[in-house]
């Protein structure tokens, strides 16, 4: 049982980080970033290229993933979402644009990196085993790094100047403008930051699960699930949703194993029931 919880916690930390990026973009722009999973995949391939192929240190790979995705996010916001949001009168327009960016990134990734599953050498060798609990050291490192990133993100949102500006924008756009918050600037920073988080998780997890170009869509769907569980646009909700999904998956894979591959079927069914009772997820408020 401890094993299941530890696995769930490890998975939950990665998921929470993915959901945080998605929920940040949603809170600031009311845009559901369909390309979030593709951004994760791109981060994974960048990390694979730099660490796995070029043999540079893993840290360098991770930073490159984060920086590249931050730039991609900033460009997407500046040249695509900003223009569409300013010019369109219907919310569907940004939804379609978001879907288009996902397909676009899928195509780019396939072109650049091919369709093979890729893996990298272990970042740390060895396995922790006390007879009761088994945990490879590399998973521990990745799990701890994910938690450090979550903590860093929370502190940044709470205490930094851009963090306060973004929280203000998410809570009341007009009031934030009246305080002198430059909407365009901080929306771009927010989108870049959200994309960066997706890229960092991809860059981290390539060390454990490897990466392949087909998993962007499924990762996006998991990210949506987490945000729906926790409540859209809320930091606490994204974290709760991430850990809950990680735990459900871990427990499901153990408990439901004998019934075949039904874990996600059960999760989806449970989510539908849950959402019909609590349509706003666990925490229906924006940006605490």
């Amino acid at each position, binding site marked *: 049982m401890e094993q299941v919880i530890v696995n769930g916690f490890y998975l939950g930390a990665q998921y929470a980080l993915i959901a945080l990026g998605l929920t940040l973009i949603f809170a600031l722009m009311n845009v559901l970033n369909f390309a979030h999973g593709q951004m994760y995949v791109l981060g994974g391939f960048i990390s694979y290229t730099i660490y796995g192929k070029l043999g540079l240190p893993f840290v360098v790979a991770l930073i490159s993933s984060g920086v590249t995705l931050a730039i991609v996010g900033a460009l997407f916001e500046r040249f695509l979402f900003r223009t569409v949001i300013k010019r369109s009168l219907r919310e569907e327009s940004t939804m379609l644009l978001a879907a288009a960016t996902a397909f676009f990134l899928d195509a780019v990734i396939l072109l650049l990196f091919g369709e093979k599953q890729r893996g990298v050498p272990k970042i740390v060798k060895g396995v922790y085993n006390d007879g009761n609990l088994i945990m490879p050291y590399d998973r521990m490192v990745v799990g701890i790094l994910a938690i450090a990133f979550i903590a860093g993100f929370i502190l940044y949102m709470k205490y930094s100047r851009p963090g*306060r*500006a973004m929280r203000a924008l998410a*809570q*009341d756009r007009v009031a934030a403008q009246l305080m002198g*918050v430059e909407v365009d600037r901080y929306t771009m920073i927010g989108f870049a930051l959200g994309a960066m988080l997706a890229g960092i998780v991809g860059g981290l997890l390539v060390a454990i699960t490897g990466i392949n170009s087909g998993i962007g869509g499924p990762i996006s769907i998991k990210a949506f699930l987490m945000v729906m569980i926790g409540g859209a646009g809320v930091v606490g909700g994204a974290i709760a949703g991430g850990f809950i999904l990680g735990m459900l998956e871990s427990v499901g894979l153990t408990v439901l194993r004998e019934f075949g591959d039904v874990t996600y079927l059960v999760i989806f069914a449970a989510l539908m029931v849950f959402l019909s009772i609590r349509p706003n997820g666990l925490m229906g408020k924006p940006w605490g």
Partner: protein
Amino acid sequence: MGEILNFANVELYYDHVYALKGVSLTVSEGETVALIGANGAGKSSILRAITGLRKIRSGEIHYEGKRIDGLDPSAIVKAGIAMVPEGRRVFPYMTVRDNLLMGAFTRSDKAEIAGSLEMVLGRFPRLKERFSQAAGTMSGGEQQMLVIGRALMAKPKLLLLDEPSLGVAPKLVQDIARSIVAINRDERVSVLLVEQNSRMALRISQRAYALTTGAIALSGNSADLLKDDRVQRLYLGGEL
């Protein structure tokens, strides 16, 4: 005393429907000017035009002699115009403290910001009691004090207030009126006060403009307007 705000022949549209059709008004340094008129007359639109929240179609807006229409809201705040929007609009999930600090977003001198915070908390002791509470959980009157305090944190030279008495308990309306007078006097802030509570607005202002469907219908000294027949009939009927 010089003019701090000159709002000249401004036209403002929402899509194809006008909200202001050639409105002109001025505010002098140190003055409190009231802007009264029925719901939908265009009062908030005037404030939105000044702060740059809404672009104007024609006319000119000058602040301290410099043209500001067309500037970004953030540049206008930085220049010294702060606005307390209609319906309060606190940041509901931030503490009172963080709300107040957001008011000083365009300022960087930590010591001066701390000074302003002390001044605001001295003026509204209730905010001190609620300092670490989420703003959204406070009463309407407390939230109104918070947004006035938040606007003062920008250290404005011109303060725009949009219906500060709306949705506030009658007992607190007096307090808020007194605060506005005190702020105008002590902080040397010029005030443009939008109110549907015309009697209160006319009592605490030196001059006033009355607005009807996007145009100035009457203007003059507030004391005179309080006694004016047309004002009595149109704007003061049945109130308080």
